[in-house]
């Protein structure tokens, strides 16, 4: 279970301008739930995921993962709980190290790393099977350096890395946005399989309304650092992409209108 309470974060831009990116987010995700997140550019989706992962410490509020209060923990300490895939395929792997080495490093996520040559024959055999399961014909390339793989191939490996050691929470931030449509479809399929198979609690940001509805069990809309709508169950099942877009636009205008007509402070 993930419990986020009144989470706040304000950034100060280099010019001194203050940008409130999260304004009191409350979100509870039961164990095993797959939540999709939509919202306009700059609405705070990535900031939300980064705050949960610990890239920075929030200004206020609390974050609990599986009952552990991680709000003040540095990123590397809560890493054992979290698996992550970023939008940028370059971000999740070490380009000059081999695919096998990357997998080995991910397998030890959050664990003590000793003076042992961990990338043994048996580990390689194990990875061979897992990579084969991705269905991307990467199983023969465990010794190749990561940098020689295409964006889609990297994201598939990153996804495998994020789940190799079962995380309490999987964070996916527009992880298909940088890929061509075919590769994006492949990655979405793999995501769906992995999440289902391992019953992973997942928070996935997407810019595609279709994806937001097709994937997962619940969809939240983020706008100006707040959750505008939280859809699940029958209400969500009855919507298609156009409905969702309309709904989102309406809600946004209501908020913008309210903001515009707010009496000056």
């Amino acid at each position, binding site marked *: 279970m993930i419990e986020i309470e009144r989470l706040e974060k304000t950034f100060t831009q280099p010019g001194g301008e203050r940008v409130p990116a999260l304004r009191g987010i409350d979100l509870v995700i039961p164990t095993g739930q797959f939540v999709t997140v939509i919202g306009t550019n700059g609405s705070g989706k990535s900031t939300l995921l980064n705050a949960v992962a610990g890239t920075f410490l929030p200004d206020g509020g609390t974050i609990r993962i599986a009952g552990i209060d991680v709000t003040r923990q540095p*990123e590397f300490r809560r890493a054992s709980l979290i698996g992550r895939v970023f939008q940028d395929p370059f971000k999740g*792997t*070490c380009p*000059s*190290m081999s695919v096998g080495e990357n997998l*080995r490093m991910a397998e*030890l996520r959050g664990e003590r*790393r*000793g003076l042992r040559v*961990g990338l043994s024959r048996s580990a390689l055999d194990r990875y061979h099977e897992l990579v084969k399961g991705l269905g991307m014909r990467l199983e023969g390339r465990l010794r190749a350096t990561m940098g020689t793989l295409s964006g889609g191939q990297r994201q598939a490996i990153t996804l495998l890395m994020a789940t190799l050691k079962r995380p309490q929470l999987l964070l996916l931030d527009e992880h298909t946005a940088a890929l061509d449509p075919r590769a994006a479809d492949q990655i979405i399929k793999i995501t769906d399989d992995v999440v289902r198979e391992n019953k992973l609690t997942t928070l996935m940001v997407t810019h595609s309304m279709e994806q937001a509805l097709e994937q997962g069990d619940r969809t939240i809309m983020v706008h100006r650092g707040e959750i505008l709508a939280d859809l699940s169950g029958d209400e969500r099942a009855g919507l298609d992409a156009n409905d969702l877009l309309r709904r989102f636009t309406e809600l946004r205008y209501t908020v913008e209108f309210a903001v515009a007509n707010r009496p000056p402070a």
Partner: protein
Amino acid sequence: MTLACGKSDARKIVIGYAQVSSVATLDEARAGFFKALADSGFVPDKTITVIERNAQGDIPALGLIMSDFQQQGVTHVATVSSVATQAALKSITDRPIIFGAVANPYVIGAGTSPANHRPNITGAEIPLPVDSAVVLAHETFPDVKEWGTLFDPADPFAEFYLEKAKAGAAAAGVRLITVACTGPGDIAAGIQALKAQGARGVVQIPSVMIGGAFSAVVKSTRQANMPLVGTTTSFQGAPIALGLSFYANGYDMGLIMIRVLRGADPATIPFQSEKKRSLVVDLASARAYGVTIPPAILARADSVIGGNPEAKTSTAGPQAITQQPARRGNNPFEFWLVAITQGLAFAALAWGVYLSSRVLRFADITPDGSFTLGAAVAAAMIVSGKDPLLATGVAVLAGMVAGYVTGLLHTRLGVKDLLAGILVMTALYSVNLHVMGKSNISLLDVRTLVADVHAIIPASQGWSDDLSLGVLFFFITVVLGLILAWFLRTDFGMAMRAVGDNPAMITAQGVDQRRMIELGLAIANGLVAFSGALMAQQQGFADVAMGVGTLVAGMAAVIMGETLLFNKRGLGYTIIMVAAGAILFRGMVALALRMGLNPIDLKLATAAFVLAALALPKLRVTRSAFRTAK
């Protein structure tokens, strides 16, 4: 305001004593000076106050020392060495300056003749008889017709002494070859350059810098089979030396100081010149060089040391040293053997630099200090009688601490990588001086790793020292390379590589990258210090300035190693090639020297090698691209 205690009984004497560095000559003058004072009842801390300062080779610090003297109300200034005297001349005009250990006070502007000088300065000069030393060299070794000498272009007396040496050479009818040398690390190279230019023996003219590293001159001339003639008797290791006593010079300086303390006006005291020459023959050194001293010269010697029962008994000179003749190979490959041995010693340095610059991608400048630290710790422990292996191990630990501190400054205090390294490197200069207690430690006649090789491989007894070290360094390098390759493949080592490759990713995998940087820099500088410790034992001395340019040499080795990779990848390959790069780099330096390159241009050549290594892969790419385009 009136003083409560009334009029003070006598004007309080406060002597400000300044010396540029701790070289044997200057230390002898210092001893003579204080002995003279004590003999007349002027005892520091009892009847007079002495503020003693040593600039430890940092020449600009002398100016600070002088203004500090003024602030502390010093009544008399005593300066030993010309640079210290120069600094005093510049800033002290209202109180007496008494100098000693100055070769030529006129060159530095203290006056125009012994009686005609600036009113507030006087002292005792010591014009070393360099011309006579060249004549003596010729008399002792009549077969040698080409004599060489190194000179420090920054030394104010270089020209003065070179002129004297030329005059002596003209009188003796021999040729004089000179090569400039800008730092202790270039001495070995300078001797090679002298040899390449035809010199068959060396008469070393006085120089504070070269004198401070005299053991390097001894080692290199022994290596090159060139007899060495000293021009001061304060340094050991030359078969013969003709000089003046710095102790007597310091004593004279003390006598002058006493006259001034008793009220004489410095303006009325003429400069005194040290005249008493002393010829010292060191039979042990002669044996080490494999030369014999003609009986006529022995008969003239004021002192003979080195334990020959038939010879005159040793007089005042330094205590007799028991010297094992250094074993020298006589084959033509000896020169290249030295180059390869040094290259092997540099392999650890190259790996250290590879670890910080390539694996961690951290611009670490600490090696310029940690290399010397390794040398200093090893040398200091070895001369105090510790086992060389133990000393080398402790040197590695010291280097690790230095690297760890650089890491801490960066990770915990947010200091930028370059600045963190600069800070630690600068601080290490003082630390290294403390460790050594002086600016140079000679390892010529102490037990070094060579002895351990003899103990491990009995057959090596007959080998030359450099062959023994070469074999040892080869094994060390192979073992170290295997350990490094294994380490970087462990789970821990992989995480360290990932910190340089993608810090965000490895943080997300639960690794604290700050700790990795701290530990990585510790290991890197441990390797660098190891290299420094080996280097000190190979070259026979540790010097506080030997670290200058270490990082550049290490980078050069790494870049050459990468060029040698020819686009092949793999950790094992890279590690081997980086070591090969270190050997190649030393080899190229050796080749440049063999070809008679002036050591002043050595750094220029180094830059050219690195540039060539950097440009080579580019040229290759352009050519193949061109071929594809066609």
